Each structure stands twice: as structure tokens, then as C-alpha cells.
């Protein structure tokens, strides 16, 4: 199985390639991609150089152009697709119907993948994108169980890619405006979720409140670790209960499900984290590459290989196990 690794910077790209990534994904340094964070992503020259570096070592590069173009100003997105092609990208990862149509008509030889932000959650939707826009691969939303992924693969020729490690969206991706409701900035329009620019920590009498857009969604004693206030993993009250009503502050780790995902017909395993450091990327990539190589050689999977990286943060297999729902 193919390991698809994040690269937020040219240094991370080189680290991922060197650590054994089959494929690296990255984005241009603007709002055309869903990790539009300060100091991240690639200018055009960096992208060209990064792709050349990767191709020299047999690694593919995918460019995510997976936000939704702004009405009245679609040009930056169209330019991103054109530049991805001229930089030599192996594929673009797109979510918007209009942009998929544009790419299919104007850049027919540029391979198109469907972003998780399009949330194609069943075989009919997947095949629809393939028939309409020639999509060759779909990144599946994190709302599906392994059995459902197998069912999709049984009914489509389109390759499937699934997230196995890193941040976890609890909501169907590309269909969530919680962040813009609280902060005015959203994944779909701005490529950000619960942005740091809207986070405040408030310290009073030994209690530390974490606020997003003025809403207090975490409260810890001052000596406890304070998780980042991502909206869907915040603490709220409803009815008689107070707690993490949507999801605990966990991240995804499906390493132990790799054999099942392979049986389910999955082509590629995706690691989240373009905002992560190159050393993190190198370590996660190295571990997943080792796991996939072991699987393909018929050796047992290395166990608990990523526990160290999570540094006490809770891990989940998310929707892949049906009980998560």
C-alpha cells in the first residue's frame, strides 16, 4: 500500500521523501489549500524544486487545492491548478465541483484526486465524481467504518485513500461551518479551522480557560496540560452533562487496522499533519513505511510504534470501528 505523507514546508518534503514516503502531498502558500497557516506551504519555485527532489528519488507529489474558490474571484484557484501542472505535480487534490470541471476541461492530462473535503461517502457519489470529472482517486471522509470502505471498493474502479494518522475531523469534512460561526474563518473558505488568531487563554485563580472566538470551550487547573481549543473537541454542557460532547481531544491512529484496510481494497494510507515539524513527519513516515513493508513481506506488524509521538494524547481508531458512532 502507498503511504501518502504531509509536507508543510520544503524541509518536511525532503524529510518525508528521505524517510521513505511513496507520495508526498503539499499546497501553495495561499488560501487555495485547507492548511493555510502562517509560515506553511510552498511558493512556486519551492514547489518546482520540491517536486524535482521527490521525483529524483522515485516519490510522487500531490498538490492539494482543496478549498472552495471564492465567488467573483476564482482566478487564484485556476492559477493554482495550472501551476501545479507546470510544476510537474503527479496529481491535484480538488474538492469544488466548479474547479474539478475547470481542471477536467483545461488540464485533462493532469491527474485528479477527490479531496476529503468533498465528503464522497458512498460508491454512488464516488462513481459520480469519476464519471463527471475523470477522478482517479478519492480520499474518503472520516465517517466510514472499515466494512463500509470495503463496500465502496467493491463497487468502484476509483482508487481509495484513507486517513490513518493525525488530526481527526468528527464532522463530515468540507461540510462544517462551526469554525466560521464562532470566528468568521472556515476550512471551506479560508483553509483554516479554529484558527490560532482567535484563541485566547485566560488565567484566573489558578484556572486556565481556553477560548475560541470568545467562547470558553476548555477549562483546566493551571498545572494541567491545556489542549488546543478546536471547536468539535471542546468541552460543553447539554442536558445534565458537561464534557466533550462531540469528541474527546483525541487524534486518529489506525496503524493496527492497516491489514484490514488492505483487505478492504484501500490503495493509499494518508497521514494528516502538514502543520507538523519535519522530525515528526520523518518519524511517522518511517514507522508507517515499516508497517506497510512488514505487511507486504508477510511479517507481523510492529506494535505500538507511534505511542511515543502522541505524548500522552489519547488515540482513537475513529469511525473505522462502528462503535465510534
Amino acid at each position, binding site marked *: 500500500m502507498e503511504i501518502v505523507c504531509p509536507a508543510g514546508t520544503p524541509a518536511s518534503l525532503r524529510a518525508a521523501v528521505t524517510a521513505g514516503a511513496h507520495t508526498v502531498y503539499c499546497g501553495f502558500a495561499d488560501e487555495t489549500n485547507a492548511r493555510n497557516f502562517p509560515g506553511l506551504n510552498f511558493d512556486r519555485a519551492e514547489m518546482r524544486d520540491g517536486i524535482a527532489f521527490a521525483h529524483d528519488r522515485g516519490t510522487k507529489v500531490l498538490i492539494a487545492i482543496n478549498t472552495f474558490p471564492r*465567488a467573483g474571484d476564482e482566478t487564484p484557484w485556476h492559477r493554482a491548478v495550472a501551476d501545479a501542472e507546470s510544476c510537474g505535480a503527479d496529481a491535484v487534490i480538488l474538492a469544488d465541483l466548479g474547479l474539478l470541471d475547470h481542471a477536467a476541461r483545461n488540464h485533462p492530462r493532469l491527474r485528479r484526486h477527490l479531496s476529503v473535503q468533498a465528503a464522497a461517502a458512498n460508491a454512488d457519489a464516488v462513481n459520480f465524481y469519476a464519471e463527471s470529472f475523470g477522478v482517479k482517486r478519492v480520499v474518503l471522509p472520516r465517517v466510514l467504518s472499515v466494512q463500509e470502505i470495503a463496500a465502496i471498493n467493491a463497487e468502484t474502479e476509483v482508487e481509495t485513500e484513507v486517513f490513518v494518522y493525525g488530526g481527526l475531523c468528527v464532522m463530515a469534512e468540507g*461540510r462544517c461551518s*462551526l469554525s466560521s460561526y464562532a470566528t468568521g474563518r472556515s476550512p471551506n473558505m479560508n483553509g483554516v479551522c479554529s484558527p490560532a488568531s482567535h484563541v485566547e487563554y485566560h488565567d484566573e485563580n489558578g484556572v486556565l480557560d481556553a477560548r475560541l472566538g470568545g467562547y470558553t470551550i476548555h477549562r483546566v487547573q493551571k498545572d494541567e496540560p491545556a489542549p488546543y481549543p478546536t471547536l468539535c473537541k471542546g468541552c460543553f*454542557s447539554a442536558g445534565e452533562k458537561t464534557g466533550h460532547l462531540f469528541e474527546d481531544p483525541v487524534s486518529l491512529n489506525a496503524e493496527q487496522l492497516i491489514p484490514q484496510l488492505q483487505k478492504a481494497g484501500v490503495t493509499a494510507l494518508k497521514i494528516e499533519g502538514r502543520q507538523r515539524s519535519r522530525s515528526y513527519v520523518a518519524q511517522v513516515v518511517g514507522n508507517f513505511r515499516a508497517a506497510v513493508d512488514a505487511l507486504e513481506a508477510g511479517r507481523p506488524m510492529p506494535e505500538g510504534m507511534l505511542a511515543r509521538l502522541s505524548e500522552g494524547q489519547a488515540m482513537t481508531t475513529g469511525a473505522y470501528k462502528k462503535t465510534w*458512532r
Partner: protein
Amino acid sequence: MELTVGPNQFFWSAERWTSFYDDLAKAPVNRVVLGELVCSKRLPFFQDRIPDAISTIVDAGKEVALTSLALVTLKRERKLTGELSEMGVEVEVNDLTALAHLPAGLPFSVGPLVNVYNEGTLSWLASRGATRVCLPPELPLASVSSLARAGADAGLAVEVWGHGRLPLAISGRCYHARLHGRSKDNCQFACEDDPDGLAVHTLEGKPFLAMNGVQTLSDSYTCAAYQIDALRDAGVNALRLSPQSTGFTAICGLYRQLLDGVVDADHLVDAMSRIDAAMRLSDGFLTGPRGADWSGKTVQP
């Protein structure tokens, strides 16, 4: 400008459901979208009542459309989605799965849960037979204006979220079931006790969201009353009102009077506070900066 009533987002008893549409038939609205949007497990409780409700509304001289589910994952949901067009009324696509199933050449409308953020997407949908699009509630006025112009050029009606709790997210997980310590498959219909969703407060006790099964809504009710001139100038064709359990036909009447110039926005807001004093309002997605913001009159309870 016309008024469209969107699909009820909540789980109501079959009796409440029927009487809601009986009342709505008499309300001054042009178009009604009905059916199940949020959770396929609710559908068996009122599915057999849909044909009668359609007849009642059509007989009252209104247009009717049938919504698709917002998130289609299970085999029976795919089958259900495929059968929508057999009901003989227009389908409102709220997940592209429904578009995949529509017979070629059949006109359809597009609901607010399909990502229509730009002219490219709007014109592609028009080329596939879309005759009407309700824009995603997240869009600011500038985008609404661009898209309304593009809609006029493409011969397609553009609708904007005008009133009601905002559909902010949809998930594979049922939060109502989780709150009660159950899984989605064994939810025992935990959402049925909350006809407008269950209030979700922040840790300082501010009302913030409303949970509705697999859906997460805003606590606030959008009210586009102060943006009517801007929307009309932009060429928006219709305002969408989203059902709530109390005073809904009166709310429809107020918006009709507002559009007709009989009452102004301040009057509408005062009247709504008498319908439900706990209803907090927002129009921040249109005006900025945040979706939760409100540009209009503050009514003291």
C-alpha cells in the same frame, strides 16, 4: 422575493409533522421542501404521510420539492435516495449522491448543504439541470451578490438562508445518542424529546449550539430581516425559512409582510420575541465578521 420553507431538520412525532404541514398550507409561502434531511432512522415514522402532505400543499397552490438526506452512507440510504424522484415532485439535492441517481434531463434544485461557493460550481450545476440553488448559509453578502448575478445569467433561481437555526455540521456520529451513553445503531431515538434540538452551552454558560442527532446547529436563529434590501439589490430570488416547533406560520407571515413593505425589520424582531422570547438572532454569516453575530435590534426579554 419569494419565500421557501426548508425541510424540517428535527425529529417530530408523526402527528406534529402532519399538523405542521396542514398549517403551512395556509401560510403565505411559495414553496415547501419536505422529507428527511438529517437521519434516515426517523423516516419510517412519517414516510407514509409524505404523499398526503404533498397533496395538501400542492392543492394550496404552492410548489413542493422533496429533500435528499444530507449524508448518505448505508446501502438502504442509497436505495432511498435513488427512489426520491419516483415521488413525482422535484428533488432538492442535499448530497451529491442524489444527483448521481437523478435521471438525466430531469430538473432539480440544490439545497444549502451542497457546497456552491462560486460561479464555476453554479454554472456546472445549471448545465446538469439545476433550476434553483439555496446557497450555503456560510456565504457573505459579497459572494451572494456574485452568485445571484451568475444565477440570473444561467436562468437559475438563487435562494438565501433567511430564518432558522443554522445547519453547521453533519457527522457519522450521533451526538444525542452519545449524550445518553448509546451508540447510533442503538440510539432509541434520543433526539425525539428536543423538537428544536438540544441546547449546547459553553463552559461559561453561554448558549452556543444545538445538537440534533448527527447534525449540529447554531443556537441562534438566523434572521435576514435587516439584509432584505441588500439581498433584493443583489437579485436574490427567495428567502428560505427553516421550520421550528413554535409559531412558525406566524413567522412566515411576518417575513411576507416584511418583503411586502407592510412591516419593517424592527417590527418583525419585536414580534418574533413575542413568539419565543428565548430565540436569539444572528445574521453574521451575511454581514460578518462571525456567523454568530447580529446586526439588528436587541430586544430585551
